[in-house]
């Protein structure tokens, strides 16, 4: 024991780090910050360190080459002992990191921690969020599979919409004219060197500022932040009723960090690694690429926006959001910190959370995507054909063969891009059905060129049978009247 102390003293005589480390560890924090609400920052740091370690481990096997990345991932999954587990830890760690960073951000915002004098800490935090998302996207590219390949295509298509320099940006992003080996290499450089390097530097600054400025005190309704007096009040608070960070508050951070690591390990163990899905071979087109979890909301947004709004939204929206986040502490740097007195802040957070949550949920079952195999894979339920005429059955065949089913569901199977047709006859009259089929419109292609008159007649005859037993099909009253007049006339004529 004496020897260890002596060795320690020998090193500290030269390094002189013990005193500043002790000072940092034992700096006084407001007692009420020793709370389970204050553990997300340290948890994010913990997951980041976990990502560094698992990332380095993966790099021992992974080959960042367009030709070999996919097979090296297969080797990690199946050949290298526990390679699957390290991949799973890295993948789940990424999901956890984005989630924890977002929770941390919401907590900081609702507790008013972005206000004076911690504006710069917030701004750097915004950059850390962007870098975390950057890591998530570039990480998805590292899993060089079909989703990664077409995801890059989507990224390139978005980048190409930048006015004037769009095509140059695409080539810069892809490292060439197409998505290929050079693309993977440069995303590897971003994912492994550039962004982590910046992350380490910015995390260092972020933590340094928390130490220098002190952790945000628990917000009390009515305790107003003023630039002139805040720092003196804060120092008085920590001096008079503060407690040393270690061990008074740190134990909760440690417990939560360990819990998160175990949670990631449990997810990794039970759910396993993400992919890789099919090979990155662009000649295999039977694929429906989907982004990773944290970009699903964007996937939904890009389907639901009106086409003409898309490009402005994509190019102007993100810079505006980032600018808003950066300006936030400068626009509301003083005043109430407590969420109890900041209803607009609470509503804003709820709105954003509900919006992102709804979009994410929608993107999980993509109602806007045609079901490519519904026409040949989903049969028409018996009850829709039972007791129908030959013409109506022929129409049901046309309905399947012409891929109507890819976008329209019947009996809850089929695409959801268009409306479900189980009761279409109640909504549309015969003439309206014919018009809709032939001319399309309302986001439906026109089928006029691809249906013979006989096919149209059969199809519409089938569609007219689609109504609940208790509801009669829609009728054009005027048409009935004209027809009955005609019959009456012909009946009276000799």
């Amino acid at each position: 024991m004496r020897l260890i102390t002596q060795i320690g003293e020998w090193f500290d005589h030269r390094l002189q780090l013990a005193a500043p480390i002790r000072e940092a560890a034992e700096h006084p924090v407001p007692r009420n910050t020793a709370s389970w609400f204050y553990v997300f920052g340290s948890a994010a740091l913990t997951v980041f360190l976990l990502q560094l370690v698992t990332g380095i481990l993966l790099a021992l096997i992974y080959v960042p080459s367009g030709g070999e990345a996919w097979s090296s991932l297969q080797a990690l999954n199946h050949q290298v002992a526990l390679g699957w587990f390290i991949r799973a830890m890295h993948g789940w760690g990424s999901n956890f990191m984005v989630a924890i960073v977002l929770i941390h951000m919401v907590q900081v915002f609702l507790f008013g921690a972005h206000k004076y004098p911690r504006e710069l800490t917030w701004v750097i935090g915004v950059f850390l969020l962007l870098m975390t998302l950057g890591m998530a996207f570039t990480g998805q590219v590292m899993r060089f599979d079909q989703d990664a390949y077409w995801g890059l295509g989507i990224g390139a298509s978005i980048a190409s919409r930048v006015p004037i320099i769009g095509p140059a940006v695409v080539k810069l992003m892809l490292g060439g004219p197409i998505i290929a080996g050079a693309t993977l290499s440069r995303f590897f450089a971003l994912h492994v060197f550039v962004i982590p390097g910046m992350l380490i530097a910015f995390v260092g600054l972020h933590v340094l500022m928390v130490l220098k400025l002190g952790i945000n005190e628990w917000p009390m309704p009515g305790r107003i932040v003023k630039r002139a007096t805040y720092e003196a009040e804060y120092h008085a608070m920590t001096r008079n009723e503060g407690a040393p960070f270690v061990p008074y508050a740190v134990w909760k951070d440690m417990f939560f960090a360990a819990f998160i690591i175990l949670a990631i390990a449990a997810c990794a163990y039970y759910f396993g690694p993400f992919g890789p899905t099919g090979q990155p071979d662009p000649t295999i087109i039977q694929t429906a690429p989907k982004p990773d979890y944290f970009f699903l909301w964007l996937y939904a947004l890009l389907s639901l926006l009106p086409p003409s709004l898309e490009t402005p939204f994509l190019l102007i929206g993100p810079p505006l959001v980032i600018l808003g986040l950066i300006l936030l502490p400068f626009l509301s740097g003083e005043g109430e910190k407590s969420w109890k007195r900041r209803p607009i802040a609470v509503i804003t957070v709820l709105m954003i959370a509900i919006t992102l949550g709804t979009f994410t949920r929608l993107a999980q079952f993509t109602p806007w995507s045609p079901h490519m195999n519904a026409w040949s894979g989903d049969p028409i339920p018996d009850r829709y054909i039972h007791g129908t005429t030959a013409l109506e059955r022929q129409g049901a065949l046309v309905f399947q063969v012409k891929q109507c089913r890819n976008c329209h569901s019947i009996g809850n199977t089929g695409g959801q891009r268009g409306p479900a047709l189980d009761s279409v006859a109640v909504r549309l009259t015969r003439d309206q059905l014919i018009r809709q089929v032939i001319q399309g419109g309302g986001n439906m292609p026109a089928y006029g060129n691809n249906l013979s008159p006989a096919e149209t007649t059969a199809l519409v005859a089938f569609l007219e049978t689609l109504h609940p037993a208790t509801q009669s099909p829609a009728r054009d009253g005027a048409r009935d009247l004209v027809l009955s007049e005609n019959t009456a006339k012909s009946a009276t004529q000799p």
Partner: protein
Amino acid sequence: MTTKPVIAPSNEDTLSRRGFFMKLGILFNGFAAMVLAVPVVGFLLSSVTRGRASGYLSWVPLGRIDEFPEGETRLATFRNPNVMPTDGKTVDTACWVRRVAGEKFQVFAINCAHLGCPVRWFPQSGLFMCPCHGGAYYRDGARASGPPERGLFEYPYKVENGLVTIQAGELPTPGAAIASLTGEKPPCA
């Protein structure tokens, strides 16, 4: 060289020997950084400048003309003209070839004009459908419905010695101002 009289070294206006050499050092390093910046920036932008100088596009064969029956649309694959050793399978590209009649063709890019997902051809309904956001196109590539703002991208083609050849080499994207890829005539034509 200064015209001011040399007085006490602490005066801010004067330039001491050390101060002069330090400024010279900064200047010299700035010069070195500039010299270094030329190849560094040149290297970083090489994928852009290469495209501008000689271009990435060249003519690649798709197959014999009799592989494409008249009035039908078939999937064809070709190898991208620029291949790097690490590209693997990514340089193999698919496209839809529609033989309208005789030697009249339409060669569509596989990439949806919305966000580049691979569109699939359904001959029964005469539609191209995109699995991502539900874009649909008619058999001639014109936009039918969904989020795309335009029709499918078309490759310029020619038929020589019974071979269908297209001009390819770049990923078609909505913003690419390449008239040949957009299938539209340039404004001066």
